[in-house]
Structure formats: C-alpha cells, structure tokens
C-alpha cells in the first residue's frame, strides 16, 4: 500500500548529540530520509545505534541539533514546548516497550486519558473508548487495572490509548520486546490492521526480525547512519 504523495515524515541532514559528563556524544550524524504517508516501517540496528533517539525526534518529544524535521508538513523542530505538546496530543500515538500505563487507572481510564485534552464530552469519550477497547479485544476488561492484566493485554490497552485520538502517526519503541511469541503475534496483528484498515503511518523500532517482517519497509541504523535494507 504505497503512497507516493507528499511524505508524512521528511528528514534531511538531521543530527543529534547528547552531552554526557562534559563530553559530547554524537548519536545521529547525518540522517536523510522520507516516510510516505500510510507506511509501516521497521527501524532496526544494534543497541545504542540511535533508534530510540530518531523515533523520539520524529514523535516530537526531543529536539534535533540541526537539519530539517517535518512531520505532516509541519517543521516540528521550531515549535515551542507548548505548541509541541498540543501537536503531539493531536498527531502522535505512543506505544512503549513497557506499556507505560498508569497503574492507578483502569483500562478504560488509561485509554480515556489522551481524550481529556480534547473538547469531547464524557458521553463521546465513553463511546470512543469502548469502541477502541472492543477493537483490541478487551471489551470485557474495561474496569481492570493494569496489574490485573497480562503483558499482552496491557500492551493492547496501550495501543488503544495510542490511536484513541485518531493521530496521523503511531510510534512504537520495541512494542513486542517484553512479550512472548503469542502475545507479540497478537500485538503485531493489531498494528497491521491499524496500518492497513485505518491507514495509520506506523514507525516501529524493533530488534526482532520476526516483528520487522510485519512491516512493509525495514531501515537499518548503524553508527548514526541509515542504510536501506536489501
């Protein structure tokens, strides 16, 4: 399902370094690549190669040192912190390796959380959340707390939370890294459906070649550089 219109992510000569104990560590040296809208891309590479760093930049939770970083046509590198927060709330869905659910909130409330930043009424929020939880197969677990759910179920709640606001892109950092093969398969199937049926652009960092196969495109990151896979 290729889409050759304007890319949803446009990156050119992007660099990023971190300061650690007075020393500057260069993580991304010169990244240039585009992600077409509706793509499902897997980012692979050795540990420490900068995969998470690149993902964080695209998701607007970190700032590049230099280069161009446009998502959905917006130069997110120059947005103020507040504008960036609003932009993330509207445009990005996050999926983390360790689910990052709020332990004191139920599955329902965790999924509802991003909607609290919108103007939706409680009734509208309720309808949306129930639909999302049905989609990830957890309609009978709405009132359960994360501690009462398996890892795979928690990740499904997290996915529901990620797409509840109908964002343009989903970023997933090792979404199956903490799961067994069966649960991982279920998660990947849901991501695949989100991509093919709801046309979400998905950027997934993974170490698992099996997971990467679900994606339509694999990119390798090594020593701060991107290589196209064969």
């Amino acid at each position, binding site marked *: 399902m290729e889409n050759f219109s304007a890319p949803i992510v446009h990156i050119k000569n992007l660099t990023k370094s971190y300061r650690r104990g007075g020393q500057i560590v260069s993580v991304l040296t010169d990244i240039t690549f585009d992600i077409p809208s509706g793509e499902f891309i897997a980012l692979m590479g050795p540990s420490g190669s900068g995969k998470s760093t690149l993902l964080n930049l695209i998701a607007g939770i970190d700032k590049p040192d230099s280069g161009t970083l446009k998502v959905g046509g917006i130069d997110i590198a120059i947005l103020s912190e507040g504008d960036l927060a609003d932009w993330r709330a509207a445009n990005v869905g996050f999926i983390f390796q*360790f689910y*990052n659910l709020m332990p004191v909130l139920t599955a329902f409330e965790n999924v509802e959380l991003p909607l609290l930043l919108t103007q939706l009424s409680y009734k509208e929020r309720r309808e949306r959340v129930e639909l999302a939880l049905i989609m990830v197969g957890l309609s009978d677990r709405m009132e359960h707390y994360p501690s009462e759910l398996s890892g795979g179920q928690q990740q499904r709640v997290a996915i529901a939370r990620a797409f509840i606001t109908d964002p343009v892109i989903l970023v997933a950092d090792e979404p199956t890294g903490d799961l067994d093969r069966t649960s991982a398969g279920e998660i990947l199937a849901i991501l695949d459906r989100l991509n093919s049926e709801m046309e979400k652009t998905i950027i997934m960092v993974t170490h698992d070649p099996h997971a990467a196969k679900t994606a339509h495109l694999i990119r390798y990151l090594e020593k701060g550089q991107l290589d196209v896979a064969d």
Partner: protein
Amino acid sequence: MTIPFSYIIRNLVTRKVTTLLTAGGMALVVFVFATVLMLEEGLRKTLVETGSPDNVVVTRRSAGTEIQSVISRDQAAIVENQPEVAYGASNMRLTSKETIVLISLTRRDSDKSSNVLIRGVGQTGILLRPQVKIINGRMFRPGLSEIIAGKSIADRYKGAGIGEKLRFGKREWTVVGIFDAGKTGFDSEIWGDVDQLMQAFRRSVYSSVILKMSDPAAFQKLKVRIEGDPRLTLEAKKESVFYAEQSQLLSNFIRYLGVALSSFFSVGAIIGAMITMYASVANRIMEIGTLRALGFRRKNNLSAFLTESLILGAAGGIVGLVLASFMQFFTISTMNWQSFSELAFGFTLNLSIIIKSFVFALIMGLIGGFLPAVQAAHLSIVDSLRAA
C-alpha cells in the same frame, strides 16, 4: 482539562501507610496549633465575659489589679455618689464596695494547695453580675460568717462544697450556697459579706468599687471626673476592659509558647511531607514522562503533585481539628499571674480558629510539596521515559 482528580486521589490511596503517616504528622501539628489557639480564646472569653460593659471598676491609680488596690471609706463614698450610677429596685443605688483577700486552699484530689480569691461584696454585688447565679443553697446573709463558692472552686477544693466549712481570718465560715458564673472568672472565686470579711481580716479599706452605669455612653464623663478628682487618686475602667487586661500576660505567654511549639513541630511535618512527595515523584517518573508525551504540560504535572500534597495537608488539617475539637470537653485551671489566683477556663473553638488551623495545614502541604512538584515539572520527557 487536566490530569484527573481520581488519578491524584488513587495514588494517595495506593500508598496507604505513607499517606496516613504523613497526614498523621500534619494532624498532630494542627492539633497543637488549634489547641493553643483554643486555649488562648478560652482564656480571653472567660476574662472578657467576666466583665459587663455597663459596669465600671474603680481601683487605686496604677494598682493594675484589685489585689494591689486600696480605697479608703471616704473615697468609696465619693465614688458611690457619682450621678451616672444606675438605680435598681426600691431606689437602691447599684454599687458594690468590695474587698479582695487571697487564701490558700487544699485541693480535693491531691494535698497541693493554691491561692483562691475571696471577694467581699455587698448585697448588691450579685445584682451587678447577672451572669452569677446561685445553683445550690442560698445567698449568704449579711452579718454572718457565711460564704458562697463558685462552682469550679466547690468542685476542686476541700471544704468548699455546700454545707462544708472553711477556716480563714481566725473564723469558721460555712458554705451556704454554690454559684455558677458560667465560663467567667467569678467561677473561680468565693464570695462573702464585705463587712464580715473586713472585720475578720482587720481591714479598714476596700479594694475596689463597682458601679453600674445607667447609661454606658456616659462612661467617659464619669472616668474624667473620677480620675480628675484630687481627693481620689483612683482610676475607672469598664469592667470588661479591666478583666481583658488581666488576661494579657497569660494570653501572650500561651500564644508565644503555642506559636513556638507549632512552628517547631511544623518543620518536622513539612520535612515528612517533602520526603513523601519526593518519593512519590521518584516512583512515578515514567508516568510523568508518559503524561507529557501524551500532550499534558509541565504545569499539569506541577499542579497534580501540588494538589496531592495539599490533599495530604487538608487531611491532616481535618483530622487535627477533629481531635482538637474534643478538647472543648476539658477545663484547665492555672495561676493567673496578674491576680495571683487560680483561674479555670476551657478550650474554645470558633470559626476563626478553624480557618487559621486549616490554612496552616494547607501551607504545610504546599511547602512540603513545592520542591518535589517543581522537580516533577522540570524533568525532560526523554529523560523520564529513559528512567523507566
């Protein structure tokens, strides 16, 4: 919208023990704080209510208290004949020449003794104090060695109960009545016939003269005349002011002690709240970062943690105030250094004390939670997500 309130409350509920200990610490401080204010208020109320605003107390100039005051019979006669004095039934002038004697009585519950104030009054003395009511027995008769005792004295001192006898001034006195003076200072006094007492103690002078004014607005005129009369060297004060001034020293002492005590303890409670809140932030770094990634702002995290510690403070405030309110059932008796005699008073809770104590509790919560909340707000998203 912001971070939901249920998220904040449930985080507190989840850490039951820490929450209870932290709020409990603040509750104790609020208890001390409120109790001291209640004590001060109780004392103030007791002494202020002892005096009526239309009564005037005349004492020797710069005597300060009735005990140190001396008024000769001639001077007393001049004072009694002032035109502002009110008339009671059968054209009786409402004045009372009084004498004050301190005697030592032994407590019923221990062998310790304390000074008790004996007031010699005329038959009008009781008419001038409508708050004083005989609740048991009868009024003493003039010309006899009879006395009546305030309720709090009768309860606490040997020989002061109805029908009992006390020895002082080389005579035996029979307690023929018990009076209830409400929560006023008179409740801690014994009254007898002024002439009998002066005879027994071989006194020729009075301590004070009490007048009831027919028109309280005329007080200033009366005061100027009495204080300007070269024969008198006396001063006149409204009775309510007179007693309020007597409580000043003790009241200040209670207040300073209370403020010192509660500030000292509050440092401990604030540090406790701070430790709790720092731990709360440290345990939720991943959640803080996740909320920010989802689009919540720094200020949302700041206010969530501040709210959390304010709730701790509020809980402490409520519990502390509930505990303190039970103190209203207790009466304290202590030496009033200005009159050198026993004074019984209670703990009085009022709206102003409730508000002050609650605000104090909230301030403790706010100070305790401030730095941790700022820390939570300052974390960068990437750092907090990496900390998970």
